[in-house]
């Protein structure tokens, strides 16, 4: 990669901690409408892309291993043991092996990356992740010639994950990227949010974040990374291939068969919030469009 990605968002875009931690109290108080108006105004002054509050990011999650309702992961994920944590890195790499979480993050520069996060269900947030570029990790383990894809796998622990007792999905949850997508400077391995350790419901201790793809591509609580020359198994893609493509790039022009992807609802706007237009590649078109040059994005959705 010629240059590292530099976010056009800065710390100034981040809501002051006191504000994002307290928003809930203000919202739930008797003067909810008034409070929301005041906070909205203060945040607006800091830039167009205001990150969601800690509460929003950590109580509204899709993590089916802990239940299918949005509030289930926040309620159930505390049972997940995140330390010690190991990741198996194998396949077409020079240094395969089982790496501890500490070995994985050792020597990595943890950066602040404020990204838009767009779920395939047509809601979105802005999340201030802390993490490092996946490319840096892959370079350290040495990607062999001929590797074309990266496969990822989430932990599968029936004792700690009440949701996996039901065959909601074909567990363990798996995802994959093309190697050039994985090596793109926007693609990160996140270990924190708002400078805090990433909560279990958000994919502790380490997860993928690919901001120009629908959220389900950004696999959580990773225990395996495999370099391969074949397009890897991806859970949603395998479950309903006509609804969830392998690429699953955010694209307002290609609708999900059961709902429109043209607009999205930004979490945090309350009961009377307007929908907003979904951006091509979730707003990262300038950075990633070149990856898909010449591809029919309606066919490879």
């Amino acid at each position: 990669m010629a240059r590292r990605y530099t976010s056009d968002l800065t710390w100034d875009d981040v809501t002051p901690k006191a504000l994002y931690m307290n928003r809930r109290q203000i919202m739930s108080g008797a003067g909810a409408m008034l409070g929301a108006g005041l906070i909205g105004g203060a945040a607006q002054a800091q830039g167009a892309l205001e990150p969601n509050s800690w509460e929003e990011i950590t109580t509204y999650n899709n993590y089916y291993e802990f239940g299918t309702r949005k509030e289930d992961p926040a309620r159930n994920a505390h049972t997940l043991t995140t330390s010690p944590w190991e990741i198996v890195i194998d396949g077409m790499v020079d240094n395969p092996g089982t790496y501890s979480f500490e070995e994985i993050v050792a020597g990595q520069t943890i950066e602040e990356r404020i990204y838009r996060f767009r779920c395939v269900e047509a809601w979105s947030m802005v999340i201030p992740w802390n993490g490092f570029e996946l490319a840096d990790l892959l370079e350290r383990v040495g990607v062999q010639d001929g590797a074309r894809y990266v496969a990822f796998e989430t932990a599968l622990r029936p004792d700690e994950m009440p949701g996996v007792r039901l065959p909601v999905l074909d567990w363990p949850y798996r995802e994959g990227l093309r190697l050039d997508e994985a090596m793109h400077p926007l693609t990160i391995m996140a270990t924190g949010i708002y400078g805090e350790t990433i909560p279990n419901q958000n994919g502790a201790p380490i997860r993928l974040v690919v901001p120009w793809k629908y959220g389900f591509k950004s696999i959580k609580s990773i225990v395996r990374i495999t370099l391969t020359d074949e397009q890897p198994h991806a859970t949603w893609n395998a479950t309903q291939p006509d609804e969830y493509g392998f690429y699953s790039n955010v694209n307002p022009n290609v609708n999900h068969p059961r709902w429109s992807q043209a607009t999205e609802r930004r979490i945090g706007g309350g009961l009377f919030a307007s929908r907003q237009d979904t951006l091509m590649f979730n707003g990262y078109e300038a950075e990633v469009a070149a990856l898909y040059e010449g591809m029919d994005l309606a066919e490879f959705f």
Partner: protein
Amino acid sequence: MAGPSDIAPRAPLTARVNQALRRVPAWTLYIVGAGWGGWLFWLAATGGLGVEPIEALEHRYGELALQLMVAGLAVTPLRQHLGLNLMPFRRAIGVLCIFYVVAHFLVWAVLDVQRVAAIWADIVERPYVTIGMAAFLMLIPLGLTSNDWAVRRLGGLRWRKLHRLVYPAAVLGALHYVWLAKGFQVEPLVYLLAILGLLALRIRRGRARVAG
């Protein structure tokens, strides 16, 4: 109508429950049912339903409609099989079911989808929305005829025939929920199975009546 003397020796508990229920006027159900809907709306507007109140309220209203549908369909089998008499509340249950279907529809159309063109596109293009709308349309005449005047006007036979629309509406409503779920989810299937089970009881009963 079975008199108290018929029931008392057979099932003293249900008789006592029936007796107690007779003291509850049906209009209290309307107050509690509609009040609960208003309370949920207040919660949604003030942060009490979590950080995504639109989806939460839409789902709560939809689930309540399905729960009331199951309750309404259970009235007849409960009387026939257990001797429990909820007949005085059946109309209120049905009207509240439609109340929540309308509330669910309004939250979806006005607060969720928001644009008229998008609402229409969803109804036409998305099968789970289409069948949900179909169920809604079937329930409208039932809601409008859930009063003594309409029953007298239509006559008992025609009124009962019209109200058989509740069966396809119930099945479509449950399918609507099953269809929109991602992956294999249990909860929508529970409603579908409950509704199919309650309808199956009627088919068996109908056959028995024909055979007898």
